[in-house]
């Protein structure tokens, strides 16, 4: 068990312990906050105290609805947006505190694939220039060597090496996403943030890109943070899944467990809202339909941020911010109405908060 060296005062939530077989975390995120200042001296608390480890070789799925902060979290890890506070530890360096020059040395190991393959490729550059640019920036290869490397990269992502002279507009959405992946791979990264990489694509193309990402992971031992609102895709590609709501992580578990056995009421509703492509299942399924919309992150609800929509809300939920607690082995949830002894919220006595004690312990630490 090795938790990264951190100032204990800064830890609000206990970092989830390392699962067996995971080894050391590649990236350790500690109490990360990203606030965006807006008019009237207020802040949008896009990411508000996130603590999680990402292990080498795994795919961590990050799921949540629009505005929950999942993309901001992904970008803050790479410092594409500046964190307000907290740590992002990568190989014992706190990325959040490095100078721009020092950061650059690490950037080549940390890459990102964007959602919109139309907006993330420069329309005036050829595919060869787009994929080759990182090679030049990081002085990895030049001239003939670079050309050859670009051709290899294109073939790796399933494109013809003859495409180097073409421009992005000559390609379909799925092909452009492949170009974006080739660009990310050019510098041989360890870690890739895939920010909604399939959301803009057609169903038949989504499967192609998911398979490609999985193949590359096996071949190159990549670690992914896969961000998506598509729970079916997340379930398919991820080893573990973290659920985010209004800037906070509310549940972390293995992909299978989070689907078969969601613990926290928001996750339960989210999973039950996913339409299953099977009419027989759909005909008999009871769906939890949440009331209302996601509240504004400018003025998030007090206590548990989900309390305004939660069917299991009790008065205490308005006051206590629930920390992530290990309710079942390697299954963390933030809800004071459940505890390791009583993990099923349906069976908890009305008004009871069996998790309150554990929550208060974590908070007081």
């Amino acid at each position, binding site marked *: 068990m090795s938790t990264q060296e951190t100032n204990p005062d800064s830890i609000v939530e206990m970092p989830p312990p390392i699962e067996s077989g995971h080894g050391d975390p590649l990236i350790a995120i500690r109490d990360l906050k990203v606030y965006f200042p807006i008019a009237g001296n207020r802040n949008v608390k896009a990411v508000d105290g996130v603590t999680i480890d990402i292990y080498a070789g795994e795919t961590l799925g990050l799921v949540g609805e629009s505005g929950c902060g999942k993309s901001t979290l992904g970008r803050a890890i790479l410092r594409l947006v500046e964190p307000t506070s907290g740590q992002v530890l990568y190989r014992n360096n706190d990325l959040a505190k490095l100078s721009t020059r020092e950061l650059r040395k690490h950037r080549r190991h940390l890459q990102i694939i964007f959602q919109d393959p139309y907006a993330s490729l420069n329309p005036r550059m050829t595919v060869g220039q787009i994929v080759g640019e990182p090679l030049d920036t990081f002085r990895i290869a030049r001239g003939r060597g670079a050309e050859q490397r670009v051709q290899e990269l294109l073939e790796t992502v399933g494109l013809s090496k003859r495409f180097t002279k073409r421009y992005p507009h000559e390609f379909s959405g799925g092909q452009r996403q492949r170009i974006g992946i080739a660009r990310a791979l050019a510098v041989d990264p360890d870690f890739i943030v895939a920010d909604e990489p399939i959301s803009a694509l057609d169903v*038949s193309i989504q499967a*192609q890109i998911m*398979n490609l990402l999985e193949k590359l992971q096996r071949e190159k031992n990549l670690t992914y943070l896969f961000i998506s609102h598509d729970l079916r895709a997340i379930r398919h590609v991820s080893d573990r899944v973290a659920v985010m709501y209004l800037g906070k992580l509310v549940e972390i578990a293995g992909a299978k467990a989070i689907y078969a056995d969601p613990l926290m009421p928001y996750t339960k509703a989210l999973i039950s809202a996913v*339409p299953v492509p099977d009419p*027989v299942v759909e005909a008999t399924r009871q*769906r939890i339909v949440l009331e209302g919309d996601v509240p504004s992150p400018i003025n998030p609800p007090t206590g548990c941020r989900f309390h305004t929509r939660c069917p299991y809300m009790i008065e205490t939920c308005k006051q206590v911010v629930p920390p992530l607690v290990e309710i079942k082995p390697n299954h963390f949830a933030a809800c004071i109405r459940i505890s390791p002894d009583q993990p099923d919220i349906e069976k908890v006595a009305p008004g009871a908060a069996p998790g309150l004690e554990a929550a208060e312990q974590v908070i007081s630490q």
Partner: protein
Amino acid sequence: MPLSKMNNNGNLLEVTDLRTYFDTEDGIVKAVDGISFQLKRGETLGIVGESGSGKSVTNLSIIRLVPTPPGKIVSGKVIFDGQNLLTLSNEAVRHIRGRRIAMIFQDPMTSLNPFMKVSRQLMEMTRLHLGHTKQQAYEHAIKMLETVGIPDARARANNYPHEFSGGMRQRVMIAMALSCEPELLIADEPTTALDVTIQAQILELIKRLKQATGTSVILITHDLGIVAGMTDHLLVMYAGKIFEQAPTKELFATPGNPYTKGLLRSVPDPTAEQGELYQIPGLPPDVAHLPPGCPFAARCDRVQEICHREFPPFVQLTADHCSLCHFAHEVYEESRAEGARSSESNL
């Protein structure tokens, strides 16, 4: 064919050999190319397909909103309650559109007027179509907003569209669409722009309102999960053609077309452990330059020489199940055999 007000076999809508072509720099794009289907009163029909398959142009053709030029409905009939909408005057179509056939689009923000209070936009509908007075129309607007679950409807009616969230805007759109009690509601990707939990709200709302009013619905989407729970019948479109049509349960259980089969297999099933996803190789075809044979041939995993040469027949598999494929019977029998095997393994 003479127009008749007769209610033929309970069909509210009969589309026959509809063709909508677009004249582009790239040549003629046959966006919808000879499709036929019926919709019975009170039923929900799902149209699924990828971008460019022609599903949205089908919808626009039915309500005569194809942008002309470059688009043109080249041939076909759209019989709505006995009248061919394609031969009616623009004036006559306007009386049907909005009143008897209503629409919901993907993006409610572009379909609502940003400069008008929501109440006024709702009132326009009933004042125009039902001849309501201002007061009647206002009360009706409030009632509709309540029906679709807008909290504090009387106060919210005076808000502008930007003051609503995405889900609430889509509710306003639905309130507008249903305010004249249409017989047919066409919903084109109604939840694509919404979050999962909001999507669930909107789908439940459409289901509930449909049960209450008996409206027929055409639901256009790319999401097989949504059609599974919402529709009675399904059309699968590809390259402007109907590739398969069947009752929803049957289409999911025993698909008779390799494209449908591939599509069903390429969607991750959240309830099952899966290895690598099945993937349909290649890209959807360029509709402006279709090959002579089957438009899916280049991507099909059971392609034969005949598929590249000859356009496939529309094969009738059962009374209401058809598939556009040279090998429709074989694919269908395979699906049945697989279905029998998997239900055995579930026992």
